[in-house]
């Protein structure tokens, strides 16, 4: 794929991925077929900051986990009322990383 397109994608989406993943993503996209560009453009990634805000306010109900696509963990969190408050606190520190990981997995699925 053209490097200008790849750089544009990286610039506008790098906040959705872990910093160490960005260089690898760039390499992958450069070697990707041009026909996948429309699929890539339509991908919607979850914002880690939004997940953190949701986790702070609705973490006890598991909404943050539902939001990033971890339905099983979300149900577990909902039924235990945020793991008796404890899991909700732990997720304040983990949800941003988890969101970036899910975004990376989503991207891998899209360009596979």
């Amino acid at each position: 794929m053209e490097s200008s397109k790849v750089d544009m994608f990286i610039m506008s989406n790098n906040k959705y991925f872990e910093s160490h993943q960005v260089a690898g993503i760039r390499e992958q996209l450069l070697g990707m077929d041009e026909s996948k560009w429309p699929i890539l453009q339509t991908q919607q990634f979850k914002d880690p900051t939004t997940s953190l805000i949701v986790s702070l306010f609705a973490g006890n109900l598991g909404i943050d986990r539902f939001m990033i696509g971890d339905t099983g963990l979300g149900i577990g969190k909902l039924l235990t009322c945020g793991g008796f408050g404890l899991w909700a606190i732990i997720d304040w520190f983990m949800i941003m990383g988890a969101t970036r990981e899910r975004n990376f997995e989503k991207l891998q699925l899209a360009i596979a």
Partner: protein
Amino acid sequence: MIHLRTFEYVPGEHEAEKASNSYLMSLVALIAGLPLPIVNLFATLIFFMGNRKSTYFVRWHCMQALLSQFSLLFINSFGFWWTMGLIFGKEEISDRYIAYMIALFLFNLMEFIATIYTAIKTRKGVHVEWFFYGSLANQLIKPRS
């Protein structure tokens, strides 16, 4: 008590953030879980389990944060149930109880300050090894081959 050491490799920005979060999370859990001392241990254990597939640096610091809670658990549990005994039982406040509570407070304060210091240093990518817990973490956590 606390040694600044050179790690096997230079940890990346994302690793330093996650490792530092393990200490910060233990502080938040400690405050949220008071007066129950077991809450903090559970929180660090779950945090370690959540990061078990992470890098060596992150796992190592999660393990040190977890191990440092064990001694606190015993000291705080004893203090907690002694206090419960005084409130609901027939026992009266003795000099031994006051001495124990002062020691407990000092130990907790020391741990609190050490945790804040380690969180700040780890966030900058500096490898901080605690006395005893650092050696234990070295034994328990090995780099993936």
